[in-house]
């Protein structure tokens, strides 16, 4: 494996918010995760690079209990995800935001209703003034206050991702998981989304995992990068270190 960016002492001083150890997952006869171990430290942006089909999305889905690993352990905010009761898992999920590749907006609801949904169902907020204030605050943060009454079908791909991000951030999560946030967007919008991720990390003080194969996004957002291949981590380092890597596969991402 490539050089580690953060030295041991630095790591020891930083709290681990997500810890994966020897995670294995297969679908039928296909082994998707062969042996994954990784840590996410508090306050950092960790980018996970890898070709399509190497198990990046499966890894982050295991972190929120959407998929259950066959072997190994997934510990999020000191809780073993697979040993949690249903109410405890729900509670944990409110602390972990997940931005899906497509934004996953509820297409039968307006933007306002999309943002109201987690507030009224998860945080059980009844006060209409508080709901209004939180919706406007988070929409302002992603720069789309004007789209408050629009339907998802009226929004562009970039706008949908921004609203998806707003809907996730409205619960004020401690950890953000981004599943290919810039896929399918033009370079300018991709850059805007990447900068928004960085901005949101500073504003909401989140720790984030960003799954991507967009190198511009990785360069803007990453504090540390993991490279995955065939279901395991093959390299770790910061952008500059991995850019100068001698490994052919790692190097190919930066060409």
């Amino acid at each position: 494996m490539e050089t580690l960016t953060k030295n041991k002492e630095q790591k020891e001083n930083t709290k681990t918010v997500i810890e994966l150890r020897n995670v294995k997952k297969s679908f039928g006869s296909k082994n998707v995760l062969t042996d994954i171990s990784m840590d996410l430290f508090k306050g950092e942006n960790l980018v996970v690079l890898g070709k399509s089909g190497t198990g990046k999305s499966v890894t982050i889905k295991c972190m929120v209990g959407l998929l259950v690993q066959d072997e190994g352990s997934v510990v999020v905010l000191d809780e073993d995800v697979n040993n949690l009761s249903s109410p405890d898992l729900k509670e944990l999920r409110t602390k972990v935001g997940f931005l899906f590749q497509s934004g996953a907006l509820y297409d039968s609801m307006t933007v306002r209703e999309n943002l109201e949904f987690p507030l009224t169902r998860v945080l059980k907020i009844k006060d209409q003034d508080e709901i209004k204030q939180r919706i406007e605050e988070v929409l302002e943060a992603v720069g789309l206050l004007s789209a408050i009454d629009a339907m998802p079908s009226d929004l562009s791909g970039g706008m949908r991702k921004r609203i998806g991000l707003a809907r996730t951030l409205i619960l004020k999560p401690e950890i953000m998981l981004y599943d290919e946030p810039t896929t399918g967007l033009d370079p300018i919008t991709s850059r805007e989304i990447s900068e928004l991720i960085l901005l949101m990390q500073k504003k909401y003080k989140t720790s984030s995992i960003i799954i991507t194969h967009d190198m511009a996004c990785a360069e803007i957002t990453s504090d540390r990068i993991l490279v995955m291949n065939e279901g395991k981590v093959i390299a770790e380092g910061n952008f500059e270190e991995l850019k100068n890597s001698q490994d052919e596969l790692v190097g190919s991402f930066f060409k």
Partner: protein
Amino acid sequence: MTTSVKKVFEEAGNQISFMSGFFGNIFSRGFEGNEFIRQCFIIGYKSLSLVGITGFILGFVMTLQSEPTMKGFGAGSFVPGMVAISIIREICPVIIALICAGKISSSIGAELGSMKVSEQIDAMEVSGANPIQYLVVTRILACTIMIPLLTLMADALALLGGFTASNIGGHYSFLLYFNKAFSPLTFVDLLPSFAKTIFFGFAIGFVGCYKGYNSNRGTESVGVAANSAVVSASLWIILLDAIAVQLTSVFAYN
């Protein structure tokens, strides 16, 4: 062979688990009242014209078809009663349920299937909300309540259709027709047929939700979910009808 048997048991297990999820969430806190009313509106109100027209024509056509034969036996005056019994006991509940399986079960299957494909259900789950309570409980309950009500309306319109058909030649007054239609009807004609529509409604909602909620990834699966929802719901309706008729003939008509 072993694999297909295993698949049948797996499918049965999944359906039982889905059903227990539904029942577990009905009485739990956080019932989605607004969404339930919205679903009642979509399932009930938006099916009114289709169900109404179908019901009216069923009564109309049945009367027109049976009248000549009955008259041949000199039993023309029995047509309103015969039509009323057939319509209320069997024809309206089954035909309306099959039509609703086509309209409602497929639309629920396609809607939830596309929500699954576009990761909206995952997004709901991962945010800590309860997708079963919001999407499944509301739809199944709305179907269970609205299908019997739609069938009752179709029953009434079918009798009106029968009256219209009989009255083309100006044979009956309104009062005479309905007097003849209702006189052979008893409580045990209406109650079991109403009760079975509750089960039909449940089957339509349940199958639509199950197929949509458990559809695979990919756009093709949305079509597959909608299609298999109609096929399975129709099959369930026929099977439930066979059971209901058997039970009714044992307990009600004897």
